[in-house]
């Protein structure tokens, strides 16, 4: 084994020892479903903020976004304001009410707010379907990284990802996952902060970098994208963040509403640091290697050729952390949706706490296996799958969550019809008019959300209001 390989092996072993150690600790501190899915409501602002950031940052950020900056330069970074607008909307309209409600899953909210088991079941089923597609992207990403950097078969890399992430997710649930997310966010931020000066010094400083890449292509240092395009992209991301189930369920695990607000702020700081570093590294790599065959290779080439072996190993662990933390959050949501919202409600309402925890664990492993089939067939590229699932989540979930928490008159019929209309609207638009209207800044997500909102209002107006006792916890401030 080479010295570089040995350093990577040691860093990876230390990392996995910490992850498994925390997971085993979580296993012995988890006795009820509330502890498994909501960490006994014990998570504070620093860990909570790191959890939200780790969940948000995925393979797409380290590979796709860095590559996007490599190719198009600075202006893509402005879409973060769309993402953060979604977070602020969530902090003001969604998080306080959800945390006060204090349930275990997002479908719990749908069932209680609209007084409907059908709406709860539909929400749980749509979450499982959409997030299984999202998992496919993460598995595909680890397969590609494993093949490109380590020269191992994609299936082996995917198996390693499921074995490690599935293991620590199933063992300790949200409690240990939260502390592991904290470590992972720290690794991601530190790896990027250490990488920036290395890359910048390779190109002679920030000013020299700007002048050089600007001479290759002026739009790289200016505005590659128009304001209209940036607003359209930003809106698509923001709508999906404001009502993202894998973020919303984590609000339940935090101590109180104030903790949630601070955690979102800390997460924004981490995202700003990560986003800025990724932008500088992408442009820096353009300065060092102006003509890479694929922009997505920029991050792996940077880790293997530009950085020292130790920093390169840290960067690779950071990339793995980004993927693992996202997979972990998705597995917790889909496992919880099956065990808590489908199994407990429809199959075995009298299940003991011990049985529920084990059904959660088994669901996590089984639902983690499903994307293998899709990932092995490579249905689309990673970034495309990530974007598409975000559009679908926003299309069927934004209105029942955001409008449902701000408009008392929304009914169960309105919620069910709006979820179905948003999902189908997004699906049909994607396969029909998407290409013709994208130049006008109209995307499937805007069509899906608009259709969902219209259906929600019209159907709710025509049907019987939700009983007052169901609304009290959400509206009586």
């Amino acid at each position, binding site marked *: 084994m080479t010295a570089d390989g040995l350093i990577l092996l040691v860093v990876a072993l230390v990392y996995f020892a910490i992850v498994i150690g925390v997971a085993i600790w979580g296993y012995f501190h988890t006795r009820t479903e509330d502890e498994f899915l909501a960490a006994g409501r014990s998570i504070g602002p620093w860990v909570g903020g790191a959890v939200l950031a780790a969940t948000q940052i995925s393979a797409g950020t380290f590979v796709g976004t860095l590559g996007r900056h490599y190719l198009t330069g*600075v202006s893509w970074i402005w879409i*973060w304001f769309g993402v953060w607008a979604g977070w602020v909307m969530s902090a003001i309209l969604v998080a306080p009410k959800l945390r006060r409600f204090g349930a275990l899953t997002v479908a719990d909210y749908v069932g209680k707010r609209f007084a409907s088991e059908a709406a709860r079941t539909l929400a749980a089923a749509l979450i499982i379907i959409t997030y299984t597609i999202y998992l496919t992207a993460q598995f595909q990403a680890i397969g590609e990284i494993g093949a490109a950097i380590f020269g191992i078969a994609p299936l082996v890399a995917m198996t390693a990802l499921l074995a490690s992430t599935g293991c620590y997710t199933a063992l300790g649930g949200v409690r240990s996952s939260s502390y592991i997310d904290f470590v992972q966010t720290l690794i991601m931020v530190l790896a990027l902060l250490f990488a920036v000066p290395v890359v910048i010094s390779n190109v002679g400083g920030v000013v020299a970098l700007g002048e050089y890449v*600007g*001479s290759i292509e002026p739009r790289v240092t*200016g505005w590659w994208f128009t304001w209209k395009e940036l607003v359209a992209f930003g809106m698509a991301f923001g709508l999906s963040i404001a009502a993202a189930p894998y973020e919303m369920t984590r609000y339940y695990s935090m101590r109180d509403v104030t903790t949630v*607000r*601070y955690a979102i702020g800390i997460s924004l700081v981490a995202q700003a640091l990560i986003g*800025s570093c990724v*932008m500088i590294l992408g442009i820096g790599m353009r300065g060092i290697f102006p003509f890479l065959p694929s922009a997505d290779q920029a991050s792996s080439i940077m880790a293997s050729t530009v950085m020292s072996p130790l920093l390169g190993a840290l960067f690779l662990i950071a990339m793995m952390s980004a993927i693992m933390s996202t997979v972990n959050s998705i597995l917790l949501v889909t496992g919880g949706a099956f065990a808590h919202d489908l199994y407990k409600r429809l199959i075995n309402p009298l299940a003991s706490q011990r049985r529920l925890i084990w059904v959660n664990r088994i669901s996590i492993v089984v639902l983690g296996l499903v994307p293998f089939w899709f990932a092995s067939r490579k249905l689309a590229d990673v970034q495309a799958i990530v974007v598409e699932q975000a559009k679908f989540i926003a299309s069927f979930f934004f209105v029942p969550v955001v409008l449902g928490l701000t408009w008392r008159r929304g009914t169960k019929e309105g919620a069910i019809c709006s979820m179905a209309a948003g999902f189908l609207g997004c699906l049909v638009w994607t396969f029909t008019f998407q290409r013709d209207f994208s130049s006008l800044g109209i995307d499937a997500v805007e069509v899906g959300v608009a259709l969902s909102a219209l259906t929600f209002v019209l159907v709710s107006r025509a049907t019987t209001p939700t009983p007052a006792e169901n609304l009290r916890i959400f509206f009586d401030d």
Partner: protein
Amino acid sequence: MGFGASFYGFFIAAAIWLLVYFLWAFNAAARDRSDSPR
């Protein structure tokens, strides 16, 4: 031609965004504390 408004402007805008967010969060926490029964 080096970096311009799109580069430096982002850092300024992000700093303002975070500042405003935390001012709101501190205010909301203070409001919650004063509203809660003692």
